[in-house]
Protein backbone atom coordinates (compact mmCIF):
# COMPACT_ATOMS: atom_id res chain seq x y z
CA UNK A 1 0.00 0.00 0.00
CA UNK A 2 1.17 3.50 -0.80
CA UNK A 3 -0.09 6.82 0.47
CA UNK A 4 0.22 10.02 -1.52
CA UNK A 5 1.30 12.59 1.04
CA UNK A 6 0.02 16.04 0.03
CA UNK A 7 3.46 17.44 0.85
CA UNK A 8 5.88 14.68 -0.23
CA UNK A 9 4.09 12.78 -2.97
CA UNK A 10 3.63 9.00 -3.19
CA UNK A 11 5.42 7.10 -0.42
CA UNK A 12 5.54 3.54 0.87
CA UNK A 13 3.42 2.50 3.83
CA UNK A 14 6.49 2.02 6.05
CA UNK A 15 6.94 5.77 6.35
CA UNK A 16 3.48 6.17 7.91
CA UNK A 17 1.94 5.29 11.25
CA UNK A 18 -1.77 4.60 11.67
CA UNK A 19 -3.54 6.43 14.45
CA UNK A 20 -7.16 5.45 13.93
CA UNK A 21 -10.60 6.85 13.24
CA UNK A 22 -10.50 10.56 12.38
CA UNK A 23 -14.18 11.04 13.18
CA UNK A 24 -14.33 11.23 17.02
CA UNK A 25 -14.32 14.81 18.26
CA UNK A 26 -13.21 15.68 21.77
CA UNK A 27 -16.32 16.58 23.82
CA UNK A 28 -16.61 20.09 25.25
CA UNK A 29 -15.60 20.67 28.88
CA UNK A 30 -18.47 19.62 31.15
CA UNK A 31 -19.77 17.01 28.71
CA UNK A 32 -21.65 14.08 30.20
CA UNK A 33 -19.89 10.91 31.28
CA UNK A 34 -21.61 9.07 28.46
CA UNK A 35 -20.24 11.43 25.82
CA UNK A 36 -16.68 11.19 27.21
CA UNK A 37 -16.94 7.39 27.45
CA UNK A 38 -18.06 7.30 23.83
CA UNK A 39 -15.19 9.54 22.73
CA UNK A 40 -12.51 7.62 24.61
CA UNK A 41 -13.63 4.02 24.16
CA UNK A 42 -16.33 3.42 21.58
CA UNK A 43 -15.24 2.94 17.99
CA UNK A 44 -17.11 1.93 14.89
CA UNK A 45 -15.71 -1.10 13.10
CA UNK A 46 -16.28 0.13 9.59
CA UNK A 47 -16.35 -2.24 6.62
CA UNK A 48 -16.09 0.26 3.81
CA UNK A 49 -15.02 3.86 3.41
CA UNK A 50 -13.45 5.28 6.54
CA UNK A 51 -11.76 8.54 7.51
CA UNK A 52 -8.48 7.85 9.30
CA UNK A 53 -5.59 9.73 10.88
CA UNK A 54 -2.12 8.80 9.64
CA UNK A 55 1.24 10.23 10.66
CA UNK A 56 4.03 10.67 8.09
CA UNK A 57 6.70 10.13 10.75
CA UNK A 58 9.23 8.66 8.31
CA UNK A 59 8.92 11.71 6.09
CA UNK A 60 7.68 15.26 6.59
CA UNK A 61 6.15 14.48 10.01
CA UNK A 62 2.76 15.89 9.07
CA UNK A 63 -0.53 14.48 10.33
CA UNK A 64 -2.81 13.44 7.50
CA UNK A 65 -6.48 12.61 7.11
CA UNK A 66 -6.81 9.63 4.81
CA UNK A 67 -10.07 8.39 3.31
CA UNK A 68 -9.64 4.66 2.85
CA UNK A 69 -11.86 1.73 2.00
CA UNK A 70 -11.13 -0.89 4.67
CA UNK A 71 -12.35 -3.68 2.38
CA UNK A 72 -10.21 -2.89 -0.67
CA UNK A 73 -7.53 -0.61 0.85
CA UNK A 74 -8.35 1.84 -1.90
CA UNK A 75 -7.45 5.37 -0.85
CA UNK A 76 -9.74 8.04 -2.30
CA UNK A 77 -8.40 11.16 -0.58
CA UNK A 78 -5.47 12.36 1.50
CA UNK A 79 -5.42 15.80 3.06
CA UNK A 80 -3.46 17.54 5.80
CA UNK A 81 -5.05 17.21 9.23
CA UNK A 82 -6.44 20.41 10.71
CA UNK A 83 -3.69 22.81 11.78
CA UNK A 84 -0.87 21.17 9.82
CA UNK A 85 1.57 23.76 8.54
CA UNK A 86 1.54 27.39 9.56
CA UNK A 87 0.45 28.39 6.07
CA UNK A 88 -2.86 26.61 6.53
CA UNK A 89 -3.95 28.76 9.45
CA UNK A 90 -4.44 32.50 9.34
CA UNK A 91 -2.07 33.02 6.42
Amino acid at each position, binding site marked *: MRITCPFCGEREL*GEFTYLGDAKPVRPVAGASEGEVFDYVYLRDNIAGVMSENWYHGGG*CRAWLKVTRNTLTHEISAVEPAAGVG*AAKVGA
Partner: protein
Amino acid sequence: MAEFSWDVRSPLDRALVAGQYGAQGDAGVSLTEIRNFDLVQVIVRRGKAADTAQAAKARFGVATPETPKAVQTTDATLIWSGPDQFFVLSKDGKHGTEALAQPFASSASLSDQSHARVLISISGARARTMLAKLSSIDLHHDAFALGAAAATSMDHTSVTLWRGNDRDGLAVFNVLVFATFAESLWHTILDSAAEYGVAISHSEELA
Protein backbone atom coordinates in the same frame (compact mmCIF):
# COMPACT_ATOMS: atom_id res chain seq x y z
CA MET B 1 37.29 20.51 40.27
CA ALA B 2 37.97 18.28 37.32
CA GLU B 3 39.20 19.90 34.17
CA PHE B 4 37.21 19.09 31.09
CA SER B 5 38.44 19.34 27.58
CA TRP B 6 35.64 19.39 25.06
CA ASP B 7 36.74 18.32 21.63
CA VAL B 8 34.35 18.76 18.76
CA ARG B 9 34.29 15.40 17.02
CA SER B 10 32.20 14.02 14.23
CA PRO B 11 29.67 11.36 15.30
CA LEU B 12 31.33 9.27 12.56
CA ASP B 13 34.77 9.75 14.11
CA ARG B 14 35.07 6.05 14.98
CA ALA B 15 33.16 4.54 12.07
CA LEU B 16 34.68 6.46 9.20
CA VAL B 17 37.96 5.04 7.95
CA ALA B 18 39.21 7.01 4.98
CA GLY B 19 40.41 4.99 2.00
CA GLN B 20 39.14 2.09 -0.06
CA TYR B 21 36.49 -0.36 1.14
CA GLY B 22 34.85 -3.44 -0.34
CA ALA B 23 35.40 -4.62 -3.90
CA GLN B 24 38.79 -3.83 -5.39
CA GLY B 25 39.32 -1.73 -8.50
CA ASP B 26 37.63 1.51 -9.43
CA ALA B 27 35.24 2.55 -6.67
CA GLY B 28 31.63 2.57 -7.86
CA VAL B 29 30.46 4.62 -4.89
CA SER B 30 32.18 7.47 -3.15
CA LEU B 31 31.16 8.49 0.35
CA THR B 32 32.25 11.83 1.76
CA GLU B 33 31.29 13.03 5.18
CA ILE B 34 31.04 16.84 5.21
CA ARG B 35 32.20 18.23 8.55
CA ASN B 36 31.96 21.57 10.34
CA PHE B 37 28.89 23.04 8.76
CA ASP B 38 26.23 25.36 10.12
CA LEU B 39 22.74 23.97 9.98
CA VAL B 40 19.70 25.91 11.14
CA GLN B 41 16.16 24.58 11.18
CA VAL B 42 13.72 27.36 10.32
CA ILE B 43 10.12 26.72 11.34
CA VAL B 44 7.47 29.18 10.26
CA ARG B 45 5.23 30.47 13.04
CA ARG B 46 1.47 30.22 12.63
CA GLY B 47 0.20 32.64 10.04
CA LYS B 48 3.69 33.95 9.29
CA ALA B 49 4.42 32.07 6.05
CA ALA B 50 4.43 35.23 3.94
CA ASP B 51 6.60 37.12 6.44
CA THR B 52 9.12 34.27 6.57
CA ALA B 53 9.26 34.04 2.79
CA GLN B 54 9.89 37.79 2.64
CA ALA B 55 12.63 37.63 5.30
CA ALA B 56 14.31 34.73 3.51
CA LYS B 57 14.13 36.48 0.17
CA ALA B 58 15.76 39.56 1.67
CA ARG B 59 18.47 37.48 3.34
CA PHE B 60 19.24 34.91 0.65
CA GLY B 61 17.93 36.51 -2.52
CA VAL B 62 15.91 33.43 -3.42
CA ALA B 63 12.43 32.13 -2.70
CA THR B 64 12.13 29.63 0.15
CA PRO B 65 11.47 26.04 -0.93
CA GLU B 66 7.74 25.43 -0.45
CA THR B 67 7.84 21.99 -2.01
CA PRO B 68 10.44 19.24 -1.55
CA LYS B 69 13.49 20.83 -3.15
CA ALA B 70 16.84 22.37 -2.29
CA VAL B 71 17.70 25.89 -3.39
CA GLN B 72 21.33 26.89 -3.69
CA THR B 73 22.70 30.40 -3.33
CA THR B 74 26.35 31.44 -3.45
CA ASP B 75 26.91 30.78 0.26
CA ALA B 76 23.92 28.79 1.52
CA THR B 77 21.57 25.96 0.65
CA LEU B 78 17.91 26.08 1.67
CA ILE B 79 16.48 22.59 1.97
CA TRP B 80 12.79 21.83 2.39
CA SER B 81 12.25 19.61 5.45
CA GLY B 82 8.46 19.59 5.85
CA PRO B 83 5.45 21.83 5.46
CA ASP B 84 6.44 25.37 6.44
CA GLN B 85 9.94 24.45 7.53
CA PHE B 86 13.34 24.31 5.92
CA PHE B 87 17.02 23.96 6.72
CA VAL B 88 19.69 26.55 6.07
CA LEU B 89 23.03 24.88 5.40
CA SER B 90 26.11 27.10 5.30
CA LYS B 91 29.66 27.48 6.60
CA ASP B 92 31.75 29.74 8.85
CA GLY B 93 28.81 31.27 10.70
CA LYS B 94 27.60 33.25 7.70
CA HIS B 95 24.07 32.00 8.12
CA GLY B 96 24.26 30.32 11.53
CA THR B 97 21.65 30.71 14.26
CA GLU B 98 23.13 33.95 15.56
CA ALA B 99 23.28 35.51 12.11
CA LEU B 100 19.71 34.49 11.29
CA ALA B 101 18.12 35.37 14.64
CA GLN B 102 17.43 38.98 13.75
CA PRO B 103 16.15 38.52 10.17
CA PHE B 104 13.62 35.88 11.30
CA ALA B 105 12.86 37.37 14.74
CA SER B 106 9.23 38.15 13.98
CA SER B 107 8.32 35.36 11.59
CA ALA B 108 9.99 32.03 12.31
CA SER B 109 11.55 29.96 15.09
CA LEU B 110 15.11 28.77 14.67
CA SER B 111 16.83 25.70 16.02
CA ASP B 112 20.56 25.11 15.67
CA GLN B 113 21.14 21.61 14.27
CA SER B 114 24.82 22.01 13.34
CA HIS B 115 26.01 19.35 15.76
CA ALA B 116 22.80 17.34 15.70
CA ARG B 117 23.11 16.02 12.16
CA VAL B 118 25.67 14.27 10.04
CA LEU B 119 25.97 15.16 6.38
CA ILE B 120 26.99 12.41 3.98
CA SER B 121 27.57 13.09 0.32
CA ILE B 122 27.11 10.08 -1.96
CA SER B 123 28.22 9.95 -5.55
CA GLY B 124 29.85 7.62 -8.05
CA ALA B 125 28.77 5.58 -11.04
CA ARG B 126 26.90 3.07 -8.85
CA ALA B 127 25.49 5.53 -6.32
CA ARG B 128 21.90 5.15 -7.57
CA THR B 129 22.11 1.36 -7.63
CA MET B 130 23.38 1.38 -4.06
CA LEU B 131 20.76 3.89 -2.88
CA ALA B 132 18.01 1.78 -4.43
CA LYS B 133 18.70 -0.78 -1.69
CA LEU B 134 18.08 1.83 1.01
CA SER B 135 15.46 4.15 -0.36
CA SER B 136 12.06 3.58 -1.92
CA ILE B 137 12.28 6.91 -3.73
CA ASP B 138 12.84 6.91 -7.46
CA LEU B 139 16.20 8.62 -7.89
CA HIS B 140 16.29 8.45 -11.69
CA HIS B 141 17.27 11.77 -13.24
CA ASP B 142 13.79 12.30 -14.69
CA ALA B 143 12.13 11.75 -11.32
CA PHE B 144 14.73 13.26 -9.00
CA ALA B 145 16.43 16.06 -10.88
CA LEU B 146 19.02 18.57 -9.72
CA GLY B 147 17.73 20.34 -6.63
CA ALA B 148 15.11 17.71 -5.80
CA ALA B 149 14.75 16.97 -2.08
CA ALA B 150 12.84 14.56 0.11
CA ALA B 151 12.10 14.02 3.76
CA THR B 152 12.15 10.26 3.86
CA SER B 153 13.52 7.18 5.61
CA MET B 154 16.47 4.92 4.94
CA ASP B 155 16.74 1.71 6.91
CA HIS B 156 13.91 2.99 9.19
CA THR B 157 15.95 6.11 9.92
CA SER B 158 14.59 9.55 9.11
CA VAL B 159 16.79 11.44 6.68
CA THR B 160 16.70 14.58 4.60
CA LEU B 161 17.85 13.71 1.11
CA TRP B 162 18.59 16.10 -1.71
CA ARG B 163 20.46 16.18 -4.99
CA GLY B 164 23.31 18.67 -5.17
CA ASN B 165 25.27 19.80 -8.19
CA ASP B 166 26.75 17.03 -10.30
CA ARG B 167 30.40 16.18 -9.80
CA ASP B 168 32.48 14.84 -12.70
CA GLY B 169 29.26 14.40 -14.65
CA LEU B 170 27.74 12.18 -11.96
CA ALA B 171 24.83 12.85 -9.63
CA VAL B 172 25.57 13.77 -6.00
CA PHE B 173 23.09 12.77 -3.31
CA ASN B 174 23.32 14.47 0.07
CA VAL B 175 21.95 12.78 3.17
CA LEU B 176 21.35 14.55 6.46
CA VAL B 177 20.83 12.11 9.31
CA PHE B 178 20.40 12.52 13.07
CA ALA B 179 23.83 12.37 14.75
CA THR B 180 22.97 9.45 17.01
CA PHE B 181 21.67 7.38 14.07
CA ALA B 182 24.56 8.29 11.79
CA GLU B 183 26.92 5.45 12.72
CA SER B 184 24.22 2.85 12.24
CA LEU B 185 23.19 4.26 8.86
CA TRP B 186 26.85 4.62 7.85
CA HIS B 187 27.42 0.90 8.38
CA THR B 188 24.26 0.09 6.44
CA ILE B 189 25.46 2.29 3.58
CA LEU B 190 28.89 0.61 3.64
CA ASP B 191 27.31 -2.86 3.58
CA SER B 192 25.14 -1.83 0.64
CA ALA B 193 28.01 -0.25 -1.26
CA ALA B 194 30.74 -2.82 -0.58
CA GLU B 195 30.05 -4.90 -3.69
CA TYR B 196 30.64 -1.84 -5.93
CA GLY B 197 33.84 -0.73 -4.20
CA VAL B 198 33.77 2.36 -1.99
CA ALA B 199 36.03 5.40 -1.76
CA ILE B 200 35.66 6.89 1.72
CA SER B 201 36.75 10.36 2.75
CA HIS B 202 35.74 13.39 4.76
CA SER B 203 35.82 17.01 3.82
CA GLU B 204 35.29 20.47 5.22
CA GLU B 205 33.92 21.75 1.94
CA LEU B 206 30.22 21.93 1.21
CA ALA B 207 29.56 20.40 -2.18
